[in-house]
């Protein structure tokens, strides 16, 4: 029955509204972009600085998410029962938390008067107002994406190969490095891309925890929001740049590593 195979006109109409809702704001951004001034705006010192800082911190945060997040995903995949539910909840909270709240929480732990931060500041290792603070904020908001992407692949994978490797004499580290990691490589790649784009767009936790200083903590989203106060054209140019970088990451990696995004 062809009728049952097709969505009803109502579904199609609502779906079109949903699609327009998602796409039209970005189309407006492209239409209203100050194209004539764009080259001048984009090569200006503040923009170049913010772009460089965003790319650098995004890459470091993604690396930190990989190093810390893959073991956490493995631990999650081995857990069960109440421990698993608790673990999942703890990893989900940063995902659903408004980033500004995450920034306040980071301040209370790592700020100059924070529970750990005070001792660090006294030792001359204060984190707020440094580029390191930007990385901390980005890693905090981005890591759950990596953990869930990797854990999803792990639970779908055939874990008996790990047991087989162990019976053939591999130690636990060798099993993790030579069997588990290659087994979940697609999940790791997908998670890393999500992490990077999330880190690139991070605003609330960064401005709250790290502050806003050109070249040190003022990333592209923060520069864009500030520019809206004084120079809306520059804000649109910055927003366009963020859009292009995010799309480039998605499109560039889609066919290689992202089965879920492939058209």
């Amino acid at each position, binding site marked *: 029955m062809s009728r049952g195979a097709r969505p009803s006109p109502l579904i199609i109409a609502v779906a079109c509204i949903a699609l327009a809702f998602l796409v039209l704001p970005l189309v407006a951004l492209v239409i209203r972009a100050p194209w004539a001034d764009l080259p001048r705006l984009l090569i200006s010192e503040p923009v170049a600085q913010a772009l460089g800082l965003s790319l650098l911190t995004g890459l470091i945060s993604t690396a930190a998410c990989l190093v810390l997040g893959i073991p956490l995903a493995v631990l999650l995949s081995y857990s069960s029962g109440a421990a698993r539910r608790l673990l999942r909840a703890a990893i989900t909270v940063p995902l659903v938390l408004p980033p500004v709240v995450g920034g306040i929480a980071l*301040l209370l732990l790592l*700020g*100059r*008067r924070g529970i750990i931060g005070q001792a660090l500041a006294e030792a001359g290792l*204060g984190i*707020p*107002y440094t580029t390191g603070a930007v990385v901390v904020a980005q890693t905090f908001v981005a890591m759950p994406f990596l953990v869930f992407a990797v854990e999803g692949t792990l639970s779908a994978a055939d874990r008996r190969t790990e047991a087989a490797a162990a019976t053939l004499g591999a130690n636990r580290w060798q099993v993790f490095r030579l069997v588990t990691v290659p087994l979940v490589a697609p999940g790791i790649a997908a998670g890393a891309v999500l992490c990077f784009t999330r880190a690139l767009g991070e605003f609330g936790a960064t*401005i709250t925890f790290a*502050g*806003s*200083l*050109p070249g040190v*903590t*003022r990333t592209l989203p923060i520069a864009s*929001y*500030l*520019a*809206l*106060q*004084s*120079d*809306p054209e520059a804000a649109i140019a910055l927003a366009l740049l963020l859009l292009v970088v995010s799309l480039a990451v998605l499109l560039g990696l889609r066919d290689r590593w992202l089965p879920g995004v492939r058209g």
Partner: protein
Amino acid sequence: MARSTRVTLAAAAGVVLLAGCAGPAPSTDDPLTGTVTVFAAASLTDTFDAVAAEFEAAHPHVDVTVNYGGSSGLAAQIVGGAPADVFAAANEATMQTVVDAGAAADPAIFARNTLVLVVPAGNPGEVTGLADLSRPELAVALCDPAVPCGSAALQLLDIAGVAAAADTLEQDVRGVLTRVELGEADAGLVYATDAAAAGPAVDVIAVPQAEEVVNRYPIAVLTGAPNPDAARAFVDAVLSSAGRRLLADAGFMAP
């Protein structure tokens, strides 16, 4: 949290004042109705809540909605067509951008404000004056030069000949105040009125050169005001002696 408490207290104070002075009873056939939407600089937060409370008591058929934010951002919204009735800015340059765009006419100056140096209670960074803002080991918070409090801070530091080593340049003056209140910054430059609103959470260090950099606050009815009669009445209320008194209570200087 602290901020909303202050707002509530200020509003309550306004109501108590009203009850206390037993002013003219609100006329039941007051011709003004509807909503007045006021866009006001962040530094006016507590004060305009009190003015709005008095205004609503005098004009029972009118609701006042105040949208607080960085003056420059509010001006951009107004020029972009935001349906506001009244604009109160923290400096004349920002109001001028709205006048130049044809969105406001004949602004009147209703208050003046100066900058002060604030430090967390107890002054952990042992700050004594503007010159300390150049000490690299201190965490220093300033407004970004793109907003009025930041351009005032820049002028003041210029006059004092201090090259400040800022650690963060905030979006509006309340952002600077919050960092100092939390102890996340050892020093910051804010308006005298913000320092007064923060109470004991901050210590104020007087800056002798501050009198040379005075922000004058203009207010105007917007040309596209949806409710021009009530908007004019609100502006008159701000400029009235009662309005002046509320502004003075908050630490603003008379125009």
